[in-house]
């Protein structure tokens, strides 16, 4: 177990090095001013402003956000990432709850599946940036039992809007994956539908739910970051990406600090889901192939 973990860590680091190597290699051999393919500018530029050296990016992490003084930027970005992480987590939990709820509804009632599924799919074709300003304007308009709707809650809703989709679809598939023989056995016990749901369908669905959770986790981060960028909500990594980008004229490596922060954040949430995966699958009986 430990050896496997160690091997995975080493592989992960190797993969990182590979990406960094590819970046530097392209920077070395690619055209400084970029180039055109079929008349459109497609070949990326390799100048220091367009593609800073990896070591410059790493060095930038140690310098303050505004070079005048203050904490190193990785601390600042860490704070932003933590804020976005919490919003993503709330969005993920919300999305998972809605997704599983819808899946159960659709598994229970055939007409619900027929009626809902097209809408669920269609919902994902609505661009998030079109929704974001509307949803964010809920703040100041909605209050639930005296609880004023805050702007960050809108961001969570937008994240959940992306995250619920794979969960709903994956869980639905999972709930239906219980073997017919097992279902018939439950029927022969005269087990109620709820009983069958919890004793048979959910356990059978776990292998389908877990990958959908991994998708949902990354989508939730994407949702929060896009919503932050789109509506300018302060405190998170999306806002940092946008405002650091603006400094790129004189400080091209700055934006990469935020990009790295966003990547670390995605990995963290993904890791959390993997942990859930391990916990859920630990006591799972091995499948016996028929």
């Amino acid at each position, binding site marked *: 177990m430990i050896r496997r973990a160690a091997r995975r860590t080493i592989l992960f680091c190797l993969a990182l090095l590979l990406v960094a190597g590819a970046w530097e290699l392209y920077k070395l051999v690619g055209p400084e*001013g970029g180039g055109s393919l079929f008349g459109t500018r497609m070949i990326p*530029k390799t*100048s220091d*402003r*367009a593609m800073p050296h990896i070591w410059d990016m790493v060095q930038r992490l140690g310098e303050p*956000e*505004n*070079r*005048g003084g203050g904490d190193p930027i990785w601390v600042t970005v860490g704070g932003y990432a933590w804020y976005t992480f919490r919003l993503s987590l709330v969005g993920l939990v919300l999305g998972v709850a809605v997704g599983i709820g819808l899946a159960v509804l659709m598994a229970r009632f055939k007409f619900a599946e027929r009626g809902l*599924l097209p809408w669920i*799919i269609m919902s*994902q*074709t609505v*661009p*998030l*940036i079109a929704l*974001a*300003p509307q949803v964010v*304007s809920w703040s*100041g*308009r909605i209050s639930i039992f005296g609880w004023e709707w805050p*702007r960050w809650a809108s961001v969570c809703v937008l994240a959940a809007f*992306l995250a619920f*989709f*794979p969960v709903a*679809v994956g869980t639905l*598939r999972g709930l*239906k994956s219980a073997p017919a023989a097992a279902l018939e056995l439950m029927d022969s016990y005269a087990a109620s539908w709820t009983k069958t749901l919890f004793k048979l369908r959910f356990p059978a669905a776990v292998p389908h739910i877990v990958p959908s959770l991994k*998708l949902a986790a*990354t*989508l939730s981060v*994407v*949702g929060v*970051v*896009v919503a*932050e*960028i*789109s*509506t*300018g*909500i*302060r*405190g998170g990594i*999306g*806002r*940092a*990406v*946008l*405002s*650091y*980008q*603006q*400094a*790129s*004229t*004189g*400080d*091209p490596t700055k934006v990469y600090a935020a*990009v790295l922060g*966003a990547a670390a954040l995605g990995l963290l949430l993904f890791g959390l889901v993997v942990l859930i995966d391990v916990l859920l699958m630990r006591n799972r009986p091995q499948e016996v192939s028929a």
Partner: protein
Amino acid sequence: MRTRKITKVIGALAALSLVAAACGGDDDAAEPADAPADEPADAPADAPADEPAEAPADEPAADSEMPADGTTDDMVVECDTPREMSLQLQWFTQAQFAGYYAAQDQGFYKAHCLDVTILEGGLDIVPQTQLANGDADFAISWVGKALASREAGADIVNIAQIFQRSGTLQVSFVDKGITSPADFAGKKIGNWGFGNEYEVFAALGSVGLDPAADVELVGQNFDMVALLEGEIDAAEAMTYNEYAQVLETVNPATGELYQPSDFNVVNYTDEGVGMLQDAIWADAGKLAGDAEYRDLAVSFVAASMEGWIYCRDNVEACQQIVLGAGPTLGASHQLWQMNEVNKLVWPSANGIGFIDSAAWDNTVDISLNSPNLEGGTVLTAAPSDGAYTNEIVEEAWTHIMTDGADTTGSSYAPIEVTLNEGGN
């Protein structure tokens, strides 16, 4: 089997949506190109609470001119509960909006019995739309863009023209020899789009150049990278932002920062094609029919003017106030911006906030008559009556509380600002 097929389709769609979402994220992150040119700020509620304690307690030097005749100093607003209201900015916190932050920080809003929430902008936040939707009580917007929204049905009115002149430039390296719009011919001219580009088209039109044939117009991000990389010959820039950004960048040839002498600057105000920019917009329906809202507007405009007067007389204090509200660009950049923004506000010959009919007509004229590449214009017809009013401004002047406040700034003189690398 049928279900399996459906699941496959769903799976594919899920994957597609994932890719689309990821790409969407990338695009947004990579090019904040869609941002309004002006960069703005957020509910001060979540702003870091570090007080810019430097704000001098002593009265802003009442420099001359206007004797205390019109300005009532002993007007104390009775105030049980401050009136809550919100102001939508065009972008994140920065000195472009210093007057409002100063009014907040110096208690001018409080003195007028106002509890103001300043809302920062974002990539997809259109201030005048937020205003028209009732998501904000007042909004800051450029006149051309706001008039376009008004023509599309937004019931809004300009109640105070804070920036009296345009801050848009076209910046190029000296060796390109671009010193006037006539020199744009045959050059690659960067412009921002999203309603920030009309002065470029107006300038081309004013010297008889055809935007489609005589120049190569290139979409530009809200930074100066394309200029420095040589992708364009001249870049659109705001005096208070993007122009400062190039001057904060190290010139690889000298190892020193770029100097103003390295660049030629075409100033659209000097070329006679400047359009009115930051103005305070209000809900026209409420202004006409809701006496409370009208009072709110007068108080808000008066207190905001006090903020702008304060920032004219206390440039460095206002820099600190803005820094305390948590911008992401650095200290010297904000001081530069404060100074440049002051130049756009002051002097205000008719008094701060007054909408000069000649400048207004010029803006409307450009909006009507400067076709872009596709032949479209900002406005298709002259704005209907009631697009602006000076009533609120004139009433607000009488509510300005600062003793002997000079509302024209006729003796205003800018300061000298030294920019540091990266604006820090």
